């Protein structure tokens, strides 16, 4: 049995002099396994060509489509309409990021900045000879690095974070996870002192108040809290040295 869905979407164009923030309601027929991606595509094609939102992969892997869905930050392409019992779904752009228009926010610039702040690349003095055998890595160690490499930069943990709202320069769980990822990777020769330089302050690992929403909402189920705690222990030890 199909039912009617009511989608309420936030609309606002900060670049327009006349635009005012408001909600627009759209009604559509639900289909089996319908996602918010499918809804928004239909709305744009049939009801409101001007509605702005972001999707790329529509498969839950690229991190483009995070938005507030009934108050919770989620990947819209992976959100099924059937999970909303009354069929009413309210969509808002994520806070904490620069608003572009309607449901679209600028996660790209935030994450590029984060990557630069934590120097999110392998630091290594060696010149690699790419014709020669690769460095051997213990299989479990490679697997563990992969576990921490799975962040898709969707920004959900950032939008979930109360600390971030109070402290705009806070690096967020994702930034701290990134430091843990490189600390774990044997290719990266940075020491714990080096990481202390990058995130050993209140905008970094000491700013976290352990409210846990980041980990609860992360679509990749990344171990954010345990990694933040781990980094904190490492860096506290460093501080007290």
């Amino acid at each position, binding site marked *: 049995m199909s039912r009617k869905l009511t989608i309420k979407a936030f609309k606002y*164009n900060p*670049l*327009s002099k006349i635009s005012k923030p408001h909600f627009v309601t759209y009604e559509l027929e639900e289909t*089996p*396994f319908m*996602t918010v991606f499918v809804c928004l595509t239909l709305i*744009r*094609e*049939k009801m409101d*060509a*001007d*509605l702005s939102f972001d*999707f*790329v*992969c*529509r*498969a*839950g*892997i*690229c*991190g*483009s489509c995070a938005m507030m869905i009934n108050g919770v930050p989620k990947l819209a392409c*992976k959100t*099924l309409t059937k999970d909303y019992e009354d069929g009413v779904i309210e969509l808002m752009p994520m806070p904490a990021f620069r608003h*572009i*228009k309607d449901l679209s926010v*600028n*996660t*790209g*610039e935030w*994450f*590029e900045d984060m*990557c*630069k702040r934590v*120097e*999110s*690349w*392998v630091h290594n003095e060696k010149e*690699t000879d*790419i*014709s*020669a*055998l*690769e*460095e*051997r*890595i*213990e*299989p479990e160690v*490679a*697997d563990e*690095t*992969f576990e921490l*490499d*799975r962040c*898709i*930069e969707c920004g959900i943990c950032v939008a979930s974070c109360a600390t971030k709202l109070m402290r705009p320069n806070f690096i967020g769980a994702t930034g701290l996870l990134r430091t843990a990822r*490189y600390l774990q*990777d044997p*290719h990266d020769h940075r020491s714990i002192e080096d990481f202390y330089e990058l995130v050993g302050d209140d905008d970094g690992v000491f700013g976290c108040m352990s409210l846990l929403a980041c980990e609860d909402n992360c679509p990749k189920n990344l171990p954010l809290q345990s990694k933040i705690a781990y980094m904190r222990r490492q860096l506290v030890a460093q501080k007290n040295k």
Partner: protein
Amino acid sequence: MNIQYSDALVIGGGLAGLRAAIEVAKSGQSVTLLSICPVKRSHSAAVQGGMQASLGNGAKGEGDNEDLHFADTVKGSDWGCDQEVARMFAQTAPKAVRELAAWGVPWTRVTKGPRTVVINAQKTVIEEKEEAHGLINARDFGGTKKWRTCYIADATGHCMLYGVANEAIKHQVKIIDRMEAVRIIHDGKKCLGVIARDLINGQLIAYIARGTMIATGGYGRIYKQTTNAVICEGTGAAIALETGLCRLSNMEAVQFHPTPIVPSGILLTEGCRGDGGILRDVDGYRFMPDYEPEKKELASRDVVSRRMMEHIRKGKGVKSPYGDHLWLDISILGRAHVEKNLRDVQDICKTFNGIDPADEGPKGWAPVLPMQHYSMGGIRTKPTGESQWLDGLFACGEAACWDMHGFNRLGGNSCAETVVAGMIIGDYFAQYCKNNGEVVDTNIVKEFLSKEYQYLKSLVDKEGKYNVFEIKNRMKEIMWDKVAIFRTGEGLKEAVDELEKLYKDSQDVKVHCKELDCANPELEEAYRVPRMLKIALCVAYGALLRTESRGAHYREDYPKRDDLNWMKRTNTYWVEGETLPRVEYEELDIMKMEMPPAFRGYGAKGNIIENPLSEKRQAEVDAIREKMEAEGKSRYEIQDALMPYELQAKFKKPNQRIGVDYE
């Protein structure tokens, strides 16, 4: 008037564009990279299965080398590829994987000792060598002699893309996202850069450089059923076409992948079958061994896709509201394997279809149907990556027809191509930017800028008759109904006619929101859809004219591969103001091939109209090989005598492997 200068300009921030940009940055030049989306969201992130490179570390990869990788690639291409390029590629691929490893890409590694794998639906124990422990592992993929596909669970592309993007940030590549290239600036001979539109504030900016590279990925979204991301609309290739100079080649060579899930079209990686998963029909019967006794589910993609459709046509499909489909069964691999190595596949099945593929029996089977997957065709280039028709324009990755895939690319060869081409072409590109360019006539740039502004203004001002979304959806349906896996002359003719009419209609659409100075999704469609239609027309028209079947291009009315008449590449170009592309052909020279055309080893035998030159060339090749082997020459020397190819020394160096060293 906003004009931005840099030494090099790269359009597209997938694996290809980013890797090429790094090569330029390493040469000490400034490089600007534009992308529609944040670069880490590029479609390259979707690569699940992995990347081919003949490291030969694992037990099932033992004895692998560039020669085998080259041979598989040429066969896979159904002899449509440029063999010199395939050689350049196979030689550089191991270096690309190793470089990525050094950049922190966490490739799955070999663990010494016995391990259980599923081969041909049977649990089998293989023993990994002590000396391979800790080196990069590889899995099996379709159409390859050895297990050669390096991987990271089923998130290979994600890790590769992040590794490369982070390295680009480190090398200070100037990345500008939400910036769409909409026009190539040129003076009729030389490319000067592009006009781009800022997708946040609508501003038009001219990006000028000594050299410009297009790495904008594929054009899958011209099809209704596709595994491609929603941004894979082929507009990068289209703006090259619109110069009227550049050629798009082999556009009819469109790959269909056997196992996207129904109905969303999200891909379940070939790794599913590579790791031992099987296909079943409505009766739960495993049908592939009946059609392809030797390679079964792991014949090349075009073959498996056609066999599946053939089986469905025999009434063996499973009925569903979305049409008939078949089943993919990976539960036979065991829950532990699925949960570790096919985690994203499991997640996709659960989220989008409510199925846990690790569940045994029909409960865990996933509904699958072949869909559009990859664009073998693209902007034609020389082996250096430069366009033959427009100086200073390079192309790389899926957007290009560098032509190592011919008419069918092998799984795992595409993300390998992106990074390998990023290295090789990136280096040629960097050299070009160093040695060329300089004085740009700003009058030309200004002219292009104002013309573009006028064009966009005319789009919003026009009180047109048509709705752009309806045109777009109709195009997708036509492509899916008439230019897909099975093609006929009649259907293709209808498709071309209807697409041409749609193209004309697309000049007369109505855009409701009139604002030019902000994100305006309808306006964006209004300028993209005519470009997509041009791409669609190149595909359909090329397919109509190619009266043979080769690789993924399958003509029911011409089921044979015709080496006598069709050893050639289709080159399409577009004359401004016309409503159809023009076509010319480029011959492939059998007498220069290291591997002259022969049977592919899968699909129906005897389905070739032979070219007598094949036999002649084969005799030559055999004679040279026999003589040189008798003289004790190395495989490198023999290769060089058969088909010499150019490649930068740093990439041409031999690759070290365990057991054989640099042999």
